[in-house]
């Protein structure tokens, strides 16, 4: 499980961000002492740092440079300033990505996932298993009962999301939004088609009634 460190002085954002990231399967630590952030980062050894720019004591740029001088850990700068100068400053000081507030959570999550994937290139979560169905992300297949079926990009994304949140309902809008974040601008009907195909493929490998419809709410596995 990836560990993310949140460096943010606004208490509400800090706790809510922590809740959100934990919901999406990340382990979170939040710094609340801003006098020695770089050493705290070093001590906690997270996989990624979310760094605010406007901080008490030292600003984010300083902290960014300090962290960079000690380690190569990925840093995403999160700030409310969105001028080119700020972006340039962050990049020059070694930040890997730059997101402006008020960020949309889906965008934030997508950026975090992309950066982690790029940095660690692990086969972490390359396979997910739930109720006897094995989803492998690298070759985009599902397997059950000794049979396999290939999934399209959209089907893979949908099933991946549902399996990540097994036992929880994902609304249709959330599924569409997640697909939009991967540049697949599908509409409501396309989602229905994709879900139906996914069900057929699951049936073809002998899994029935795996993907449940919660009327008026969404889907879950």
């Amino acid at each position, binding site marked *: 499980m990836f560990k993310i460190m949140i460096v943010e002085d*606004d208490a*509400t*954002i800090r706790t*809510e*961000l922590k*809740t*959100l990231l934990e*919901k999406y399967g990340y382990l979170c630590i939040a710094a609340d002492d801003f006098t020695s952030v770089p050493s705290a980062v070093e001590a906690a050894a997270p996989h990624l740092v979310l760094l605010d720019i406007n901080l008490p004591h030292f600003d984010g740029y300083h902290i960014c440079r300090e962290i960079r001088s000690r380690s190569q850990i990925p840093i995403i700068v999160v700030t*409310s*300033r*969105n*001028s*080119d*100068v700020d972006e340039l400053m962050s990049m020059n000081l070694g930040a890997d990505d730059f997101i*402006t*507030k*008020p*960020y*949309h*959570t*889906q*965008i934030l999550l997508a950026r975090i996932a992309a950066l982690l994937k790029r940095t660690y290139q692990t086969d972490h979560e390359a396979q997910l298993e739930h109720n006897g169905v094995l989803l492998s992300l690298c070759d985009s297949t599902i397997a059950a009962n000794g049979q396999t079926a290939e999934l399209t990009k959209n089907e893979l994304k949908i099933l991946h999301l549902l399996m990540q949140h097994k036992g929880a309902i994902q609304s249709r*809008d959330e599924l*569409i*939004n997640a697909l*939009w*974040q991967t*540049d697949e*601008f*599908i*509409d*409501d*009907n396309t989602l229905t088609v994709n879900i139906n195909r996914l069900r057929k493929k699951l049936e073809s490998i002998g899994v029935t009634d795996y993907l449940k419809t919660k009327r008026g709410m969404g889907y879950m596995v």
Partner: protein
Amino acid sequence: MKFRQYLKDHWILFLCIFFAMLLISCLLMIMRLSAEGILFINLLVWLFVLIAILIDFMRKKKFYDNVFFNLETLDKKYVLHELLDPPRFAEGDILCEVLYQCSKAMADEVAVYKNHSREYREYIETWVHEIKTPIASASLVYENNKTPVTQSMYEEILHIENFVEQSLYYARSNYVEKDYAIKACSLKEMVGTALKQHAKQLIENKTVIEMKQLDHTVFSDSKWVQFILGQLILNSVKYQSPRRPLRLAFTAEKQAQHIALHIRDNGIGIAKQDLGRVFEQGFTGENGRNFAKSTGMGLFICKKLCGKLGLSIALDSVQGEGVTVTITFPVGNMHLPED
């Protein structure tokens, strides 16, 4: 300066010389000088007077003609006094001094307002950045506590966010050069980013997105273009038709001198008589009267930013069928913004 004007200006002088010569002639007559002699003296005096007048007139004409020529050709007329040759007569010196004092006083006055407007813009920018933090935390609270109540509050937060964005870009629109970087940008990426930014509203409204022939590279500032696209997308959401699901089509076409990006929706459209004025500040038209949330600022800011970025924006619509907005990007990387 006309000669007649000049003569009219000096009538007292001529009248005095005339009477002086009349008096002198009478005196000379009493002194029994011959008529030819008197005539000759008269002619001689008038000749010298004429020469003096001509020299003076030419000098003044040259100066004032120069003044008017500069006035006509100058773009910023208040720098006139800097461009005048030193006049070699008293009235000219006075004029120059007056001009200098006036333009200096005006420059001081303008500087005061420039300062005010800079301070105000800086305040707005800071304010916008400050308010983004509470907006971000409110959005996160919603994300972690999704209920119908927080859902509808989140929708209002998205509205607030858009108004805040608008005010930031409006405050910056007069100083684009301060935050402006022209790079090669992919049309597809910019449209994609704008769509992702407003994904929530679009998905909620069951929008069907079409993207065709967007594999073009244009030279512009992606941040500003994305903001403009965002405003257009939000307009399409706001003015969608209640009778059919919203459909947004993005298409691009390459022409000889430019690349045109069309954004077409199938909303309620704009009345014919309003079409010419949609880019005016505060203009809301017929749709504005039917929709309480129109501010008449969105398209105005878009037009203003497009002007600064050297893009052109045009809007066409058939009422009841939808709106097509076309943004035109010049081709070539040597492109510079206006001003």
